[in-house]
């Protein structure tokens, strides 16, 4: 028990020191959390989904995520969600993620991410889809940066194996040292292998997300708006407000 206490206190001290040195401006931050730094994200969101002309979901949820910088090259994370309204329930899934800082150039760095959502439903399928992202970020100027491949490869595992390529990307703007704005979209999803066809292009739907991040030394406040199809008046829509705390 004492050993555990010492370990926790040591981690807290390391995390506190790392948090103090962590840049405020998003454009100056490394893609992964530095070694020992912990970030806890708590979010409240509203989501509306539509299909075939009817509303199929209108719900509020709370998300909780923890990320830990294991070393300069590795970051591990875990996330889960609770539905708050209309039915309050845990969604019986925990998503585990691992990020690897594979390349760090002067302007470009690449940190691939593997996310593995584990389902604790009643069925036999523990994992039905995994996500592999390329995690590319390019600094285009002092204030401008681009991101791509955050969800590069959805991998369907059950009920059938299928591999897809997603073409997504976005542009970010560091408006002030504290405020960053990010616009992202997905141009296409192409099924490469397998019977589950996820192929769509912006001719079918044009998903867009707009994000504003207000960063302080230890706390990030994020507002994110997502549209499932920005060309359709009635489409999927979500609004997320989150706090990211580095204790």
């Amino acid at each position: 028990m004492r050993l555990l206490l010492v370990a926790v206190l040591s981690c807290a001290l390391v995390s506190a020191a790392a948090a103090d040195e962590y840049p405020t401006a998003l454009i100056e931050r490394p893609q992964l959390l530095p070694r020992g730094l912990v970030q806890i994200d708590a979010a409240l969101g509203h989501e509306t989904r539509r299909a075939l002309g009817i509303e199929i979901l209108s719900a509020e949820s709370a998300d909780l995520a923890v990320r830990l910088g294991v070393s300069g090259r590795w970051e591990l994370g875990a996330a889960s969600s609770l539905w708050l309204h209309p039915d309050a329930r845990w969604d019986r899934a925990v998503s585990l993620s691992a990020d690897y800082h594979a390349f760090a150039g002067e302007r470009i760095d690449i940190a691939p991410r593997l996310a593995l959502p584990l389902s604790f439903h009643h069925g036999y399928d523990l994992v039905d889809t995994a996500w592999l992202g390329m995690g590319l970020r390019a600094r285009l100027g002092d204030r401008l940066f681009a991101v791509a491949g955050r969800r590069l490869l959805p991998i369907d595992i059950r009920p059938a194996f299928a591999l897809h390529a997603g073409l997504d990307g976005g542009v970010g703007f560091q408006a002030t040292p504290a405020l960053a704005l990010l616009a992202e979209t997905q141009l296409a999803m192409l099924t490469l292998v397998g019977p589950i066809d996820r192929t769509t292009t912006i001719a079918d739907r044009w998903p867009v997300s707009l994000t504003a991040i207000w960063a302080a030394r230890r706390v990030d406040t994020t507002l994110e708006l997502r549209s499932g199809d920005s060309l359709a008046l009635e489409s999927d829509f979500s609004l997320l407000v989150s706090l990211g705390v580095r204790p």
Partner: protein
Amino acid sequence: MKTLACTALLVAACAGPAGTSVDLPDGSPGIGFDDLRYSARLGKVLVPAGRSGALDLIDPASHDVTSIGGFTQMDDYGGGHDDSVTSVDDTGRWLLATDRTAGRLEVVDPDQGAIVTGAALGGHPDYVRWVAETDEAWVTEPGLEQIEIFSLAGDGTPTRTGTVAVPGGPESLVVDPVRHRAYTHLWDGATVAIDLAAREVVATWDNGCGDSRGIALDPDLGFLFVACQEGKLVLLDVDQDGANLAEVWPVDGSDVIDYSPALHHVYTAGQISATVAVVGVSSDGDLAILGEQDAALGSHCVVGDGEGGIYVCDPDAGRILVRDDPFDPITD
């Protein structure tokens, strides 16, 4: 505190499926359900309850169960769905039910709550369906790769009148009163159309399944829904020579499905994913997964009552799970 939190998490993770359920008489050893039907005339969910030896009728409002016995009764449940009564249909006067163990087609008078007559079958039965247009009972017999046909006398007594050969099948059966056809699957990725009067296969269509299972029809739109064992749901257009219009993957491990023509919703349950899904159907042949809910491992059969009630079999517990279809009708 930590112990309490862990316990709460475990309870949340391992608790039974959400929603209500209907326990069936003598269901606790388990029941090998297969076919489920809803009779709008009787206002009852019809549940052939396998080894319990009864055809159970569930009232959707009260969930009261009326049990009609007289089928083969067995003490032990060994899994699968090969025991006793497993398929049923409503003629408008009688209920027809097949008993796999006895190899019989039984005719039930729902007013008397009893079997009144019946006939021996030529082979091991799978599904029974009433063909109103010809006043015939069609019984699929996969072991003999045929459909056996019976006419019914005024007192309900069945008389064998012929067969339809379905090499490679038949799996599932649905009748199309608009086109005077019946549709059934071949096990290995095809669906066939049968002319009701000629009693012969008149078309064979690729259905995209690795293993074909359940079937449902929207006769007005000419949409035939095919459930694949692997969990895929396929929409074939019977007016376009079985053209594949759409497919989705709503569950893992599908079998018996149902369709609500009023809502334009298909219900499909997954015995591996332990879920039941509602799939929307647009008039131009699009499919979209509207939502899914928990069911149970082994839940491979489902029926709707046309008014938003969904009934899913739970074989290991010998009960029927009741879920709601909360979605609006598709009008697109």
